[in-house]
């Protein structure tokens, strides 16, 4: 487990927290490549609704995912205040459209509580756990399940 390995060396893990609507989420900082402002994306034909299109990231074609729509919430109406979290998921690089980046957290594994028992499998599939930070609830997101890799797609 890479998380465990990281804990051994740093004594904790660093997460990037971001806001989508009125909820807060966080992802492992190691998978985040950069954070940039919103630029209009070129829509893709026949794409699922949460794929906003592709943008030019220094010459690479980067698909942009509306994180809110991806989780089945209200689709975002991107403005210049929105940000794109450029994340590496397996071999691909994708952009995640979120409302704002709120924090960088350093937490120990013990701070992460297991995902509460909820009815929906969908929410459970991407949530790795929840964190209680200063009275806020932050959901730790597993990017692998948000963006399935090739093998899973074939299965």
């Amino acid at each position, binding site marked *: 487990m890479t998380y465990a390995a990281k804990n051994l060396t740093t004594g904790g893990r660093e997460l990037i927290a971001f806001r989508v609507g009125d909820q807060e989420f966080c992802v492992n900082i190691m998978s985040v490549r950069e954070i940039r402002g919103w630029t209009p994306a*070129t829509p893709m*034909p*026949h794409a*699922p609704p949460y*794929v906003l299109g*592709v943008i030019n990231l220094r*010459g690479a*074609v980067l*698909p942009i995912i509306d994180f809110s729509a991806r989780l089945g919430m209200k689709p975002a109406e991107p403005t210049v205040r929105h940000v794109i979290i450029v994340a590496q998921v397996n071999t691909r690089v994708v952009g995640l459209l979120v409302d704002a980046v709120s924090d960088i957290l350093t937490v120990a594994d013990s701070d992460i509580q297991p995902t509460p028992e909820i009815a929906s499998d969908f929410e459970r599939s991407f949530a790795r756990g929840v964190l209680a930070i200063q009275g806020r609830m932050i959901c730790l997101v597993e990017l692998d399940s948000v963006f399935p890799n090739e093998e899973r797609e074939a299965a």
Partner: protein
Amino acid sequence: MDMNEIKEIFFQECEEQLAELESGLLKLNDGDRDPETVNAVFRAVHSIKGGAGAFGLDDLVSFAHVFETTLDCVRSNRLEPTQDVLKVMLRSADVLADLTNAARDGGSVDGARSRQLITELEALANGELPQPAAEAVKAAPVAEAPRPAVNEEGFQPVAFSFDEFEASEPPTIEPSTFEIVFKPKSELYSKGNDATLLLRDLSRLGEMSIHCDMDELPALDRMNPEAAYFSWKISLKTDKGEDAIRAVFEFAEWDCELDVALAGDASAGAGEELPMQPVPFDLSLLDEEAPAAVAEDEDQSAEQPRDLNDAAVSAAATASNILQMAQTAARAPAETAKTAGPAPVTAAQAAGQQGASAATPTIRVDLDRVDRLINLVGELVINQAMLSQSVIENDTNGTSSINMGLEELQQLTREIQDSVMAIRAQPVKPVFQRMSRIVREIADMTGKSVRLVTEGENTEVDKTVIDKLAEPLTHMIRNAVDHGLETPEKRVAAGKNPEGTVRLTAKHRSGRIVIELADDGAGINREKVRQKAIDNDLIAADANLSDEETDNLIFHAGFSTADKISDISGRGVGMDVVKRSIQALGGRINISSRPGQGSIFTMSLPLTLAVLDGMVVTVANQTLVVPLTAIVETLQPEASAIHSFGASQRLISIRNSFCPLVDVGRILNFRATQANPVEGVALLVESEGGGQRALMVDAIQGQRQVVIKSLEANYTHVPGIAAATILGDGRVALILDVDAIVAASRGQSLKPEMTLAAAG
């Protein structure tokens, strides 16, 4: 660096040597008698043998050795390189290539074929002339016949050990005395060779007396410690032949002046065809005895009749001159002209050119690095375009210094792009050379006599294009020989040369490479093609087709006019596959044929696959790029030309033929309703299936060269979209996959393969 890496380098070099070998042999085949060509061929085989020896590739070594021995006979003028001889040699070159591949990839080779060629090569080396009709299968037994006590089926491949080899050379038994002059050059020492060791090896051949010549040794204060000053005169009494002596110096041969001569007239050379003069260096003999030489060359022809020793000395000088030239390539061609004398112009030019190309230093670079560089330069170009655009937008008064700087930047980036693209550009030569082998093989299989003429081999094109060119070209060459050319009998009956000619040409034309394949065969039998097309329901029985349209029918899938299906071609998967692969490269293919005179296939390909000429169009407020190669014409539809057809289909009439109208925005789901055709522009495109469609777009923005970007790298394949590109404003534009769009318009729906949806 481990052994495998070294081996890999060896195999890369082998490929180069094999190419050199083949081109040399083909030159000889065309009547080139330049000694430097013979030498180049010899050197190629020799280097392969040397390298193979170092890696213990015994099969390769043994075959190369026999080949080399035969080539040595040519080099020393003991064997006239006639067409028949060269046929054997070209086949040997093929086998050598096979053996090299087998050694690299661990495959197996046709052992019988290489053994048979070894026999043939040995027969040639022994002065037996090949059978006039050099029919491979027959030649071997005949060549073998003079040898005693071998029965029919058991003719044995001669083993490759050196001793047996010599056993087959005629003048070996009686010991004879050789006078050897051995003068090492400094290169010999710098390559780690040692004269002492060579001399010690030599002494094992027989009785030897050595005299060291120290005349050239300068005074101590003027001596260069790394130079070579000594030479040796050796008198060797041995029962082994001259070849055995030369074999000692085998790996030092290019780094020394070696002169082996029989002392006196002795018993020598009974079996040789030419009187064995004390040959100072084989090269010189080639010079002196080349037919044209005697006439014009004053110095040498005057010297020739003189005392043999004198001749030997002067010839040795000539030889060493030529050698030095070949090695250093430093001297002007003029000197070659002086020394080589005969056929001065061509020989000198050839030597000069070869010298020049040999002198250009090259490095091997990993292809990935080049690709990365090309990508970065692509970014640079885009970035530069974005920068100029935003400067123009923000600065209306035009600060001249900024604009001038930007203009210079633009010029520089263009230049950088061109030179980086040039790194990937490679001459088409290797592909063309591969074709000559295919022609030989097919000609053998079909019993036709074919001559392949290639032109413009040095035309350069992107490496990926070259790699993908080989397959369709092979297909076409096979077709040309198998279907295009007639049998020799028919050719004679038609009053043509029994030998058919296939001409393969490459040239640059307006930013593209044009490859032409012409045969002088019977041309396309239009009646037969037409009948076949009618039988296969490709056209209506009463269809009225122009000659050109009939000719182009052969590009339809499942079309083959060959009466019987042969091994080579004729399974009907020929030309449509060719056409598709050429189109996949962004190219076009055309045929023109004249009955009785042959057919010409013309392919036009882009110089690179990294950029594409595209038409930038607007569809439902989105910018799309349509590959220019797909577009036949563009037109502004008039309301009267649009006809509804059924519930939702619309046709457009173009010069009285009806063509389905395809709304790109609708197919790509960019809009829900069909656009009004009169407000847009129609692009007439030709697709894979050969059918034409009119693609409806809203407007044409312009024509531009775009850099192709992969969509698959971070996203997934999108049906209807071939790739993406980045426009001057920094936004991503999608490149249309015209074939997929056309297919979708036929009713095969574009399947939205929603990769990302799979998660839900």
